[in-house]
């Protein structure tokens, strides 16, 4: 009997405590920058597309909802010709971001992606690519990689020696 009354009192007490529910959408909750929401493709500090179409995100994705096709620019830079994410399938696990060797693919604190037509849940490259660097400001893959691209020849990446002169007789 006593415990029943106690319980009743506790329940009643909650009628006077402030509500946790916020008046969404008028009122927006705070989401930390590392919240795992809508996925974007970012650019490097020079403003070039970061994604090199390496396919690692697609491979690691547990629901296989990323599909892309590699192509190459005239200077040898690898980029994605197409990049599709099927958000009807995505479980926002963030594995893709973790796997990405270039910090291209990032999850953002945005979850407002509801659609009336399921087909609209397919985000293609033009929907995914943003103009900034996202959460990681400095990383620039091609400045570390050994592949030559326009403006960065062989031996000009970080911690590289000048190309070997194969005609030299020095040991």
């Amino acid at each position: 009997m006593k415990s029943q009354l106690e319980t009743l009192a506790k329940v009643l007490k909650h009628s006077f405590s402030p509500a946790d529910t916020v008046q969404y959408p008028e009122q927006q909750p705070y989401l930390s920058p590392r919240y795992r929401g809508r996925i974007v493709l970012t650019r490097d500090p020079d403003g070039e597309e970061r994604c090199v179409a390496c396919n690692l995100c697609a491979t690691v994705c547990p629901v296989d909802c990323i599909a892309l096709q590699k192509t190459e620019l005239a200077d040898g830079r690898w980029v994605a010709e197409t990049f599709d994410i099927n958000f009807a399938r995505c479980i926002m696990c963030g594995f893709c971001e973790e796997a990405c060797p270039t910090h291209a693919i990032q999850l953002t604190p945005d979850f407002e992606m509801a659609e009336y037509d399921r087909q609209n849940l397919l985000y293609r490259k033009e929907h995914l690519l943003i103009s900034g660097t996202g959460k990681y400001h400095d990383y620039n893959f091609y400045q570390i990689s050994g592949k030559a691209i326009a403006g960065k020849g062989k031996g000009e990446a970080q911690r590289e020696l000048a190309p070997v002169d194969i005609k030299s007789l020095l040991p």
Partner: protein
Amino acid sequence: MPEIIVDGKSYQVAAGGNLLQACQSLKLELPYFCWHPALNSVGSCRQCAVLIYQSEEDTRGRISMACMTAVADGQRLSIKADKVAKFRELCIEATMTGHPHDCPVCEEAGECHLQDMTLLSGHINRRFEGPKRTHNNQYLGPFINHEMNRCIACYRCVRFYRDYSGGTDLNVFASRNNVFFGRAEAGVLESEFSGNLVEVCPTGVFTDKTYSQHYSRKWDLQSAPAICIHCSVGCNIYPAERNGILRRISNRFHSQLNGHFLCDRGRFGYEFVNHAKRNEQVWQRNQQSKCTDQLDTQQAFNRLTELLATTDQDELVAIGSSRTSLENNFSLQCLVGKENFYSDMKSVVQIQVNQLLAHYRQVQQSSDLQSLEQSDCLLLIGEDVTQTAPRVALAVRQMSRNAGIEKAAALGIPYWSDAEVKNISQDLKSPLHIISHCHTKLDDIATSIDTRHPDVQLLLIEKISHYLIVDANISTQIDPDNELDQTALAISIDLRNAQHPFILTGIHLGQNSAIFTATLLLSAILYQLNPAAGFICTLPQANSLGLSLLNDGDCDLDAALQRLTEHKTKTLIILETDLYRYYSVEKLQYLFDNVENIIVLDHLLTATAEQADLLLPTCSFAESHGSWVNYEGRLQGGIKCFAASKQRRPAYQWLTNDTDFQSIIKDLSGLSDCLKTLGSLYPKQSGGFNNARKSVRESGRTALSSYIDIKEIPPDNDFDSNYQHSSEGIASHIDKNQSPAYIWSPNWNSNEAVSHFQQTDNGAIRGAPQGILLFDKTANDTVFRVKNATGEAPLAKPPNVDKLFKVLPFHHIFNDEELSSYVATVQQLQPKACLKLNSQQAQSLGFTAGEQLHYCFVPAIISNHDRFKSKETQSLPLQIDDGIATGVILLPANIIQQQGASFDNWLLLTRTSTRGES
């Protein structure tokens, strides 16, 4: 069998090998770089270190390279001991100090032997903070990409390119960790086997440029065991597809044929499958509206039935194809009846193929490439195999190394100790004699080269036969001044003395019938003298032999054309063949105009297909199951790799009203005793699990087709084989009874995983059929429906020898074969068409190099077939080439094939400016 003890466990291993081979055959995981199953050991990479113990008491052991240590009975070793594991890890760490941060943008990643070995050795963290050495890259042609930074200096590339395949333009430059592997100057790689660098190089230095153009990681590819259709060898390949595009071809190990290597035509000639001219729809010419209508599949079937129903049997002609499968040809033959079915080979070729069939049946079976590699004396007659069946030439090069290996063996050096064998053998080569009308790429390893006029060649071959029959001591009676006698005697002595002598020849349009007959006779004599003697004869196309087995001897292409001109024909069915390759436009136009309905089945819009009244789109080799008979009569089955798009369907389905594949092969296998086991090439179980054509790691399954429809499209079905178009099902490395759909094994992502699929060291792939040898002695009936061969064509005499040249073809790996000629990258490497004469002849006629000359074919025998012979003269520039016999003029093989007569061809040359003079 010696017993070795590895990490406390004892194993039986094969004698004579090294420890790395032994560990490979035991499927023990021992890393390696510089060793290669076909290139053997040099001990330079220090990756395969093991700890060898002197005795049971020895607990310290000493570090040794497994690849350089011979197997000995009772040997104790450890792979896992800390000391040696640490050694391997340090080695790889040192190797990786200069390695670029490239994996995400490296075509090799995902099937990189370096990645695999790095992980296997346990090196996962880079400690080295210093700078990396870099290299400039070179342009190496349309096939191979060069990214030298990634090199780990294992030397496999140069050992393959120079030592194994005889190339000269790839080399190693500079020294110590600066070594550079490339050409002296940027430029197209000259070897016909350059594509193998992609697989031989354990890193991403040499990668497949064509694959990179539509790149996909290995784990995303769908593949199935298939047969290369670009020449008569029938190398085993893996085509690999993703999303409806054929992405690349890679090697599929076959111990008796291609081993670990393919030629560039086979590897890079695949893009006709993705060609812009591929047929995907049924088209019908509409005479009223003067345009082409598109039919749906049912309408197409109805139209075909209607056309056939309204055609009398004697007004129906069908032409089969030597570039498509046996099943397709068989279905066409059943549809139109035996008497209306013709092959797509000109009679000169067909007659020789029939002769060859008779030879296989009555005299001697053909040999595989493995036994050619083991031969110790080879006589090559009249075939430029490097250009026509390139994989055979690679085997010839191995054959020539045997004398050196033998010499080393006599000194106690095992064959696998590559550097030592090379050092000991120096320039020593097994005897290779070449008799031909022009120089070939094999000249560099030849003992004797006889570049002669065909008439002299014939004499020479007959003399060799003669000296083989008569006792060798007859040499005393030989005229020492007769050079031909001397040569013939020398060759016959070499053939006699050899343990496994070989005769190698080939059938092509320029092959002289008399020479071919003499060659067969010579081989028969040799075979009688020595039952270990081998014989190989290459053929013009992938299924030339298969088609000839189906077809009656005299139903060749010339006969078909004769019938079309002489008898009224209402309906003509042409299966996957382009007649414009064989006849001139005028000749065919006349014929096509007289036929009411031309039905063409093809997967490409060939010139012939453009003439069709009804065009039915068929499947390429990658989209259909199908069997092929290679040069030796080996029937091999190719499994389809991916499902055909749109209205494309296999020709056999169009021709049999949608009969399934299993029923077709059931009918086909009833044709002859030797086909009884055909079904074993296409096992089909009912119920149970199928094998997956895709890897378990395949990505993008729920997004790949989302742009078409966000609801996933179900995978295609394959009811005809034990493979399915999905990553679900049994993975290839688990199912031991099926030919693997792809080569992958846990920890081994590269093609090096092949050792995990081999029954023994370098042996056959478990579960994979080796093909059915149709002429095997155990098959008592090899006749399909064929009459005996019709005999040989006479050696024609020219009407006026002085002003005429004997025309013979020159072949080129990228020029001759039809399907690969559609590929843009292949076209880049096709030589410019020209006429070739030696300088002496050119001089005597006053012609200079580069001059544009008119030529005109003069048939030696005026036969009925040549009624439509083009009287028009054509012109080509002249090239001087001193490797050509006098009296002979060379023309590109495809031009002779199209414009020449059926039998012997003679050519009249005229100068462009002063016509009429020769």
